[in-house]
């Protein structure tokens, strides 16, 4: 039997890698992918917890997270397209008209 802690730690590591990607990458799409990584980290932890508690609610939450991720992807990518049309760039550090 794999200890629960391993799963949690795995989830945490994936989450943190996502955080790093979000902080460090310049490309907006990869930043967005990093958020998906973070969500997957959460999902791994949730399914594991759900399994070890013999409770299905965690898995339900995962289900909703996936649904929301789909919605988020649709809107996020649409926003990115709109942004690309206006700015012709996909680099987050090249859009800083508003600052200060």
């Amino acid at each position, binding site marked *: 039997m794999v200890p629960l802690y391993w799963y949690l730690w795995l989830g945490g590591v994936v989450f943190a890698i996502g*955080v790093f990607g*979000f*902080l*460090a*990458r*310049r490309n907006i799409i990869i*930043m967005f992918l990093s958020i998906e990584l973070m969500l997957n980290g959460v999902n791994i932890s949730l399914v594991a917890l759900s399994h070890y508690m013999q409770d299905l609610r965690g898995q339900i939450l995962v289900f909703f997270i996936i649904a929301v991720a789909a919605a988020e992807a649709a809107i996020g990518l649409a926003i990115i397209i709109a942004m690309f049309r206006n700015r012709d760039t996909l680099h*987050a*550090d090249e*859009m*800083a*008209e*508003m*600052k*200060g």
Partner: protein
Amino acid sequence: MQYYLLIPLLPLGAFLLNIMLGRRVIRRQAHWPSTLAVAGSLVVTVMVLLDVMSGRTLNEDLYVWIVSGNFKVSVGFMIDQLTAVMLVVVTSVSFLVHVYSIGYMQDDPGYYRFYAYLSLFTFSMLMLVTANNFLQLYFGWEAVGLCSYLLIGFWYEKRSASDAGKKAFIVNRFGDFGFGLGVIMVFLTFGTLDYVSVFDGAGGVAAQTINILGADVNLITLIALLLFCGAVGKSAQVPLHVWLPDAMEGPTPVSALIHAATMVTAGVFMVARLNPIFSLSPVAMDVVAVVGAVTALFAATIALVQNDIKRVIAYSTISQLGYMFIACGVGAFGAGIFHLYTHAFFKALLFLCAGSVMHAMGGEVDMQKMGGLKRYMPLTYWTMLIASLSISGIPPLAGFFSKDEILWVAFNGGGVGRAVWALGTLAAVLTAFYSFRLIYLTFHGEFRGTEEQRHHLHESPAVMTVPLAVLCVGAVAAGWIGIPPIISSVFGVEDANWFAEFLKPVVGHPEIEAPHSTEALVMGFSVAVAAVGIAVAWVFYIRNREIPAVLARRCGILYRLLFNKYYVDEIYNATVVRPAMLIARYVLVGLSDGVIIEGVVNGVPALINRFGARLRRLQSGLLQSYAAVMALGLFLLMAVVVMVLK
């Protein structure tokens, strides 16, 4: 009887209407809303007066604004006999001033603004007198001060006017500072600002003392004196009287309003309203009486030699206010209010007459350049004569009854009473003298002005003279509701001092055990000295006009001292204003290039600015750095948690 609310609300509404629509819509019709509103207030006031006379007084919190523990800010009204009298005085004088101003201000470009301020002024004063708690009193107090600043400096293009406005405001600040401290002390002592609860609790703390800089001070005395500071400022008592004569720079109707009804009387009203506090402190009472008496004499002496017609009246106001404080100081608050009430009529009348004279003279205020106006403006002359007789205390005019009552209670006051009485009586001689000096210089003899002015001389229009006539009736008859028994008994009426009876539930009435003969003697004496004063004035200014000049030359020092108002302004300039300016100029400006200003005044904002500029750089517009700040914040919080809990 919620309709009493209309009394302050009508002028407030008129103010809002005029200030919002005045410039574009109402314009030359601005007098309508204001005058109608104050007329409405007057009508409601009469209704309230009738209610109060039938014994229905009221004290209610209308609504509570904020509450926090003991601290409550509420708007509440207290309508009792004292308030009713004040309401009558304020609304009636204010109404007449409104009407009079239609003529006086007719060509002024700021017509709507003038009426808006006038309404606000009236509203503030009405709020002040109807308050049922200290905070509302304070609010009215400050609002009155603000309005007076606006109206005195009404012709702000004129430098002297805006200076006078500022002076009034700043001098009042000194008094108001004490008043504010007094209110805070009241709250700290009683834990509430409600009149009734404070008055109920006042007896319980009468013996308490607090230690200030090593000296034990009676708490009530301290509170009373602090509050009195406010009255000294607002009612222009020595040493804070300097603003009132300068306040003449405002339009004359404003002077009438300030002097008769809405501003200077606030101090007297406040002392009378807070009589349960003052009565508990003999020290404070003596201070009030002495300040009043000194002021009465002091101002009267200055008035003797002034040539500016409005200034003479201004100093007479200060002097008369002194009388009112004498009354309060000897415990006869009712007599003080009585004098306030009669004074309102003859003083408003004097001012409006002076305004009428100035109107005819094309704005001239120097009495040396007048003379012989009797012929040109008979109505103004006669009404002003009656007002002067009234202020001099000649029976049976209004001023006689109120002044006589004050002197009589002072005479029997014990303690400082006799001395105060002596000062008051001396001041009465001078009052009669300067009042008639004014009459003789202005209306008698021959005209000393320019030919052009003579050509222009005319009686004022009806809209100005009618208020004069109405006030004249008041100046004659207002005193007849407070006739002392000694006189009324002659006519077979045993108790005719209805006014004192009316106010008794609020302010009490000192019982005087003294033989009628003494009273008759005192009364006769004061009438006699007034007559002497008039006679001397006649000799000086009609019979033998050389005397004043000779006298001035002989007693040069005294004359110059009086003419320059005891150099009080100069002294203040030298001791307060100049040093303050010097400090401002040399110390502050000098240091502004140096360390202190750089460090403190500019330093803190500069520090904030520099810090802000740093922070701004952090807000770089870069998405990733925003996320990094968030992540770092999160990490630090997590780290703290793990550290602390492990």
